[in-house]
């Protein structure tokens, strides 16, 4: 059936003395063409769907190959094959944060192994974070098995280096936005106490920092944040503390490797920060 001949027939519909039989034939042909168009559109959509799945299949193959390469590299790093990873200035890493996806945070034994690896590398101060507070609930087990103490908070950042035992802070989503809301209420109440109900409040970033400390959020800004989960995402780690924190994705906790950890920490100690200048 040719489009040209149908269009010619359609022009004849303008003829006032039209044969009804001819008219119904043309309309039938037009409906058939419309259906063909729909069919083509459906075939097109199916084609795009297949192409999309194919592209994602290729991407998955790529990540599988990259995963094998990273696995080999981390075994080599762990075995000491690369000289540059043997030494690093661990003093540059004063505070490390570990973000773990809440589903995996239930694997307490894996968390303890990770902490033992960090102790072997020489990391002294760690903040363990997961969204739902699963790690907070396993606090006692983790501290007992990793020979560390609970982070009580220090007044001056410089005294972090004096600590001999590893300290661990536990945080969850409620230490982020909700803590800022509590700090806001503290500032509000203090403002009223100073007879401020007649004045508009003016707060600085310093005021917020002090208010957060006053409500118990005393942890310093981490230098490095390692994310253990399916994707690179900080999962709501307290925003106030993350201004210049380097965020590195380590893969899932299930697939954690000592070599990858050494490499990530070594890479951090080589980074030079401009701080916007």
């Amino acid at each position, binding site marked *: 059936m040719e489009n040209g001949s149908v269009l010619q027939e359609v022009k004849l519909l303008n003829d006032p003395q039209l044969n009804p039989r001819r008219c119904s034939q043309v309309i039938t042909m037009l409906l058939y063409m419309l259906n063909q168009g729909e069919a083509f559109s459906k075939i097109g959509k199916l084609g795009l769907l297949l192409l999309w799945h194919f*592209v994602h299949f290729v991407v998955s193959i790529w990540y599988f190959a990259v995963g094998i390469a990273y696995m080999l590299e981390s075994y080599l790093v762990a075995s000491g094959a690369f000289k540059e990873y043997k030494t690093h200035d661990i003093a540059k890493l004063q505070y490390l944060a570990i973000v773990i996806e809440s589903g995996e945070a239930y694997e307490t034994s894996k968390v303890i192994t990770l902490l033992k690896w960090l102790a072997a590398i020489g990391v002294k101060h760690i903040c363990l974070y997961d*969204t739902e507070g699963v790690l907070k609930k396993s606090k006692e087990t983790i501290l007992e098995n990793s020979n560390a103490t609970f982070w009580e908070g220090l007044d001056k950042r410089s005294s972090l280096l004096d600590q001999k035992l590893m300290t661990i802070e536990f945080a969850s989503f409620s230490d982020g936005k909700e803590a800022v809301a509590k700090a806001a209420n503290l500032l*509000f109440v203090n403002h009223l106490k100073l007879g401020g109900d007649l004045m508009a409040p003016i707060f600085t970033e310093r005021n917020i920092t002090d208010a957060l400390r006053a409500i118990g959020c005393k942890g310093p800004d981490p230098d490095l944040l390692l994310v253990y989960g399916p994707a690179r995402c900080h*999962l*709501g780690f307290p925003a106030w503390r993350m201004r210049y924190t380097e965020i590195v994705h380590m893969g899932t906790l299930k697939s954690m490797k000592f070599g990858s950890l050494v490499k990530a920490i070594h890479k951090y100690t080589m980074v030079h920060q401009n*701080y916007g200048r």
Partner: protein
Amino acid sequence: MEKDSNVGGKTSNTYTGYLGCLLRKCVFATLSVGPIPNHLAFIMDGNRRYAKKHNLKEGAGHNAGFSALMSLLQYCYELGVQYVTVYAFSIDNFKRRPEEVESLMDLMQEKIYKLIEEVSIVDRYGIRICFIGNLKLLKDSVREAAERAMKATAKNSKSVLSVCVAYTSTDEITHAVQESCREKVDAIEQADSYNKEEGNNLLINLVDIEKKMYMVAAPNPDIIIRTSGETRLSNFLLWQSACSHLYSPSALWPELGFWHLVWAVLNFQRDHWYFEKIKKQI
């Protein structure tokens, strides 16, 4: 003869342009089978390094960066991304050399006027421009340009471009806390005429603070792209990025192109199930 070859050159450029457009449409049609991010954010890092790498004058890096921004905006809006946020100038950047800050301010002013006075991408995609940050820190002429741009594009409703200038997340949070306190103080003053005790029991909720954030009009970003391989957020959208996919390509900002965007979207689609799961948890 020269004229002919110029015309020939222009024709071949037009054909290349059409081919490029067709290729983009095919790629975007394929990507659109899966979920498309609604909000993309960019940290435009690496303009100065680009200028050094190509032995250009210092300001030329930022000019190249602006061209890259225009191209990327076109690609984003063609793909169907409704909100794009860019980190143009941080409060920390005021610490740079005064001459550099001055030239950046002049460049920003020039480009803002170019966007609203010429027929540009703003008209093509119905973009509403918002300037986000502590605009009082900007010099008067730049602030005026920004306000004019916001006024000129206020009626556009197809897509939104949020330009963060004189912005940091901590300043945004401080401002939001201050404004929500101010609101409560005003509520107490009004309550005075009724019941002072009732007024004093008013508490600031998280919702009150979130309403006062500069970025309240946009949804949380789906992907935050920081160029130059840097892995930190540098005080950008820290409050809004709890469920954001963070992507750090090693390309410098002026080198960021179409395929980087495609790769970011592919990765977003791969992990989309995970981000939907986290959004329900938080």
